[in-house]
């Protein structure tokens, strides 16, 4: 496709976003990284605003506890701030931050498990205060309270099962299904090959399928 054809298509608005979105994102990210390296606090605040939700969500899904997830997310951002000088932009900013978050959550979980061997994810989830849980306390416009209760229970069972599968499978599944990362991004985040990503996701789904068979 020639440049003229591209320009014509862009004018029609049919492919403009598709073609230009990535470079624009990259350019914006590069600009942000430059400002971060210059210790620009406003740039860091932009980064926190942009990533706090996914980072917290990731930590919450990996740890299964709201307080632990909050601590892990905060620690992640502090590590990002301290490590900005070491960031060489060889990987994407997002995958770099996710990698720090995963490592932080995993480290925290090791300690957490030692401290709370007898607690299970289900207990932790009851302290999770997900939006769904809060919303379900109010009457829903679309679903009956009974349906909402069933949905909530299914979600709880699913998360309990997710908390029981092997850690490395859980991380891969959370990144893929909940955080919606591509296989390539997961590979970059976890510093593993695409083949390993495929294998972990496949094994994770299989293990989870066996555990939640009654919910399917």
């Amino acid at each position: 496709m020639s440049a003229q054809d591209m320009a014509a298509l862009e004018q029609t608005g049919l492919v403009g976003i598709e073609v230009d979105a990535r470079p624009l994102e990259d350019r914006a990210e590069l600009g942000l990284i430059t400002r971060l390296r210059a210790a620009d606090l406003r740039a860091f605040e932009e980064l926190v605003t942009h990533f706090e939700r996914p980072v917290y969500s990731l930590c919450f899904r990996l740890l299964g506890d709201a307080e632990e997830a909050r601590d892990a997310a905060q620690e992640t951002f502090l590590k990002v701030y301290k490590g900005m000088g070491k960031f060489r932009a060889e990987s994407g900013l997002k995958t770099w931050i996710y990698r720090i978050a995963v490592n932080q959550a995993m480290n925290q979980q090791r300690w957490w498990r030692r401290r709370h061997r007898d607690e299970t994810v289900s207990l932790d989830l009851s302290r999770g205060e997900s939006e769904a849980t809060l919303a379900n306390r109010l009457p829903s416009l679309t679903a009956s309270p009974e349906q909402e209760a069933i949905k909530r229970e299914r979600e709880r069972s699913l998360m309990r099962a997710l908390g029981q599968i092997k850690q490395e499978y859980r991380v891969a599944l959370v990144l893929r299904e909940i955080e919606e990362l591509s296989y390539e991004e997961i590979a970059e985040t976890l510093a593993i090959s695409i083949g390993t990503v495929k294998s972990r996701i496949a094994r994770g789904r299989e293990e989870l399928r066996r555990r939640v068979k009654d919910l399917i």
Partner: protein
Amino acid sequence: MGCKEFKWSASSFVDRRLDADEAARYQAHLDMCADCRSYVAEIRQVSLMLKGIEPPHLPEEIHTNVMAAVGLRAAGEVKLGVRVIDLLQKLNPSLVSYGAGALVSAMLFGTTLAGLKPIPAMGNMVAAYTPGITASDVDYHLYNNIPPDSGLGEFDHAYELPRVVDTSSLISLSNVAYQKPGNEGAAALVEVLPDGRGKLVEMLEEPSDPNFIDELKWSLSKRPFQPATRSGQPVQTRIVLLLQKIDVSG
């Protein structure tokens, strides 16, 4: 390719990670295998269930806490301890963790040791002694049951009687004896050597606990005395050690 292999590839098929040929072969297999069809449907269902999980409620304090901490760092107002930990963690986080663990262990060990105090001396009640008693030649000779020196006056020599050192093993021994239940009484003739050691010559009154004699011998071997002196020079003397205790408890 059998059903087992097809099941293994189900996840990649669901995620469209198979190349065109593989995907076509896979689809052809699914069209004729109800078992694999059902399996793929279940894997897809698991994937959908995970995707449908509601996002957690984001705590507002994350933003505030992070920015506050970073603001402090930027302003250089980080506490010295935090800076040191940061620096150490840059060097080697594992070593820092081990070091911190060792430090905490050492502190706990030290605290435990500090709690182990020696049994307090109970003052003159237990082992009374009179420091710095001087005596005449006559006293010395009478005390030690030896004939007087010929040609010397009564005070030609300055004698000092032997003393029990106040932090000695004998003090501990008397404390141990005091803590035993019941009455306890013993008397022993002891030779105090110039180097401060004691030597049990004879038990004048046997204690009720026979182990006490062994304990006494051990205590005497630990130089519990300041020896007697004659004109400033340590000399050998004999003393009678008395232990008397009356239990008034109960």
